[in-house]
């Protein structure tokens, strides 16, 4: 019980005293996961819209692959990206291993199927009459797709939230391709693992609470933003 109370106190102390290392870790986590979700959105949302709104051969296969990748183990993705980026790997010349770039790559791979599969469900749940109505009013194919995406915006936002939740908390890939280097690739999840390993449960718990708090604030922001705009 003491651990929890001490952890809570420590979490607030670190946040309120603007502890430099804590804030470095928080900002790096947000930068890496935010960029990964942005890239995954650029890939996943069009993919979901394409598969959800158009009939073409192989559509069922793509849907099955997307749904399967939903459950991609983070360590497997980490290993895959490691092999790609290691010195002998096909992309070794980029020198990305143990950099935030490698972590962004791994997290993008993790988030894309989640955002893609949930976007697919989101556009399929829009009344098909909306598509017909847009076409009847003279919209082109792209304009019709954008209209359907706008209609599905709350569900698409839920897809982004799910994708963000997946990557901000993952540890396997971040540890393998990032290496948990202090000030360079140490993010909240890897820092928690490190502090737990060292027996600094209070600090680990404090970081855990901060991680939860940040996930809550980001999700709340994403959820309420469109409502405020409306």
């Amino acid at each position, binding site marked *: 019980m003491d651990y929890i109370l001490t952890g809570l106190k420590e979490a607030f102390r670190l946040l309120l005293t603007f502890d430099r290392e804590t804030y470095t870790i928080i900002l790096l986590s947000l930068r890496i996961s935010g960029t990964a979700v942005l890239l995954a959105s650029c890939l996943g949302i069009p993919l979901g819209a394409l598969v959800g709104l158009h009939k073409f051969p192989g559509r069922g296969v793509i849907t099955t692959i997307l749904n399967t990748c939903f459950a991609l183990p983070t360590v497997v993705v980490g290993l895959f990206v490691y092999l790609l980026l290691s010195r002998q790997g096909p992309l070794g010349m980029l020198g990305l291993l143990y950099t935030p770039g490698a972590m962004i790559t791994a997290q993008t791979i993790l988030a894309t199927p989640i955002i893609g599969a949930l976007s697919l469900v989101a556009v399929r749940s829009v*009344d098909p*009459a*909306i598509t*017909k*109505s*847009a*076409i*009847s*009013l*003279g*919209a*082109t194919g792209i*304009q019709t797709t954008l*209209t359907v995406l*706008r*209609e599905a915006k709350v569900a698409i936002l839920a897809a982004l939230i799910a994708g963000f939740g997946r990557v901000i908390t993952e540890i396997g890939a971040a540890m393998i391709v990032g290496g948990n280097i202090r000030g360079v690739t140490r993010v909240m999840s890897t820092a928690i693992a490190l502090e737990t390993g060292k027996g600094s449960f209070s600090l680990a718990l404090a970081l855990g609470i901060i991680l939860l708090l940040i996930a809550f604030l980001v999700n709340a922001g994403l959820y309420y933003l469109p409502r405020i705009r409306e």
Partner: protein
Amino acid sequence: MRKFIIRTHNLTKEYDGEAILKKVDLGLERGRIHAIVGPSGVGKSVLLRLLNLLEEPTSGEIYFDEKALKENNRLELQRRMTLVFQKPVLFNTSVYENIAYGLKVRRENRRRVSRKVRKALRVVGLRGYEHKRARNLSGGEKQRVAIARAMVLEPEILFLDEPTSDLDPRNVAIIEELIKYINEKFKTTIVIATHNIFQATRLAHEASFLFEGRIIESGRTQEIFTDPKDRRILKFIEGKIIF
């Protein structure tokens, strides 16, 4: 030979092997109001969706200004016409944005869009509704928004699929007046699908009676419903065909 803005030849539509429309031959004259009349479920909505290019026919041809569909640019053709659905399909946004939609996808400038939308709102009796959420309106108001959204485009051809079937008498009257206004003001060719012969008689210059997927009689509306040549139309008028 008469020139039609739309003409169909042997137009057939099947769903899962079942023919809903069977070799429909239809000619629609420019600037006229044409009613497609018939009991529910005979294929009126399907015919409108085919003419509006929202679905592909199983076989047969559609000619626009006597040019086959493949000789036309599909998007250009699509933008010459629009369809108002039986249940108004409004986007989940404001009334203004709904009415402006067709103009915006045509990349009309903002000032022109604003002027046209405000004028349309005045005509349909919804001035001051610009910022209301379209989906929160009543059924009649929603249908007026849908008609305003079509009207601002000043289409050459306007398809209306049972536009008053779920409305109260006051909204029916308002919408019928709007239909006449659009036809007279913009010389729009209007094709209205309805099961209501009184509405067809009030609005349409010509009518075609659709029964079990076939056009069984076409001609001047008054003549068709006062002196029908086909006994099935007479039965329909007398209420002996249940729909």
